[in-house]
């Protein structure tokens, strides 16, 4: 079973077309294994991306060095999935 321990989901807010372009370029960096839930399109739309733990530091440094705003939307994906699983078990019991 695949685990997502330490993976985070970032909500990124680009403030210019240049930043959108930078974010689009990130999609080509396969080694980071980024999973875009909402892709970079335009400044009015937030970008959500799941970042494997191993790539977190690199991505955050990239965003901060380019002045791109972000916040951590999910602190640990695995914890959330575990909660979801427990919720399902409770539902089964009920």
């Amino acid at each position, binding site marked *: 079973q*695949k685990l997502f321990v330490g993976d985070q989901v970032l909500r990124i807010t680009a403030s210019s077309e240049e930043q959108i372009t930078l974010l689009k370029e990130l999609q080509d960096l396969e080694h980071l294994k980024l999973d875009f839930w909402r892709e970079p399109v335009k400044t009015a739309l937030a970008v959500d991306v799941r970042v494997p733990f191993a790539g977190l530091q690199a991505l955050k440094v990239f965003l901060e060095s380019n002045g791109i705003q972000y916040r951590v939307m999910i602190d640990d994906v695995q914890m959330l999935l575990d909660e*979801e699983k427990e919720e399902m078990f409770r539902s089964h019991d009920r």
Partner: protein
Amino acid sequence: ERNTNNFDYASYHTLEEIYSWMDSLEAEYPDLVTKIQIGSSFEGRPINVLKFSTGGSNRPAIWLDSGIHAREWITPATGIWSAKKIASDYGRDPSLTAILNTMDIFFEIVTNPDGYYFTHTSNRMWRKTRSINPGSSCVGVDPNRNWGAGFGGPGTSTNPCSETYLGSFEHSESEVKSIVDFILGHGNFKAMITIHSYSQMLMYPYGYTSTETPNQQELHTLAKSAVDALAALHGTKYTYGSMITTIYPASGTTADWGYLNGIKYSFTFELRDTGRYGFLLPAEQIIPTAQETWLALMKIMEHARDNPY
């Protein structure tokens, strides 16, 4: 959960539970509901559709589907609640009754059964189908990039490892081909609504080109009335418009295929994004999401009923 009245609509369910629930719904409403198998998934699971019909032959029809992107669990959850609503409101709600007295409704609640099963057993974040890609170790195709509508155009990836991999040819995925064959074989669909999440949007064609459809104005007005109806319940704000102007260029999508094949009222929903996390919607939001979505669905279905073409 032996019948659909005891079913817990406020929680997420496995594929097996959903398929069992379909059987229960069919058994409880034998004069209205029929389960049809329109094909099999890559891994051999049945692709089931609920047909709601009050009789007649090859009546004009409405197509609804949910769950084409496996991990978007809120969409089949909304589908289950909505299907029960269709069955239980027939004969009670005058508007829905009028729809079903002239049209049939077909509802595919789990459009990507292999992917959905995989999200329950191996990878909760899985989005694609589970087909094998020759020459690649990466599995699956994005079934919302695999339709014959601008196939291979902008917003798709030719990399099998990408989440938006379009597949080796159009309708390569049995999950897509089964719907294509069924709808074309039927030949009288008037509306096609595909339910995704999570961005709070209602979109109409096109996604693969910035050219406007000949029905742009009508579709835009209808989308507005649908999102207004939706917002009236819990205040959930949707944006709306053509796919390419509202979200992004996307080729090979369900809604574009429907429109290009003569289904004028072709829409894509992106359900709510107001959960704690934006993506994994807490179970307590299932019913509110379904309730508000239902109001928008009704607007589109009523419009299809009242504007035959």
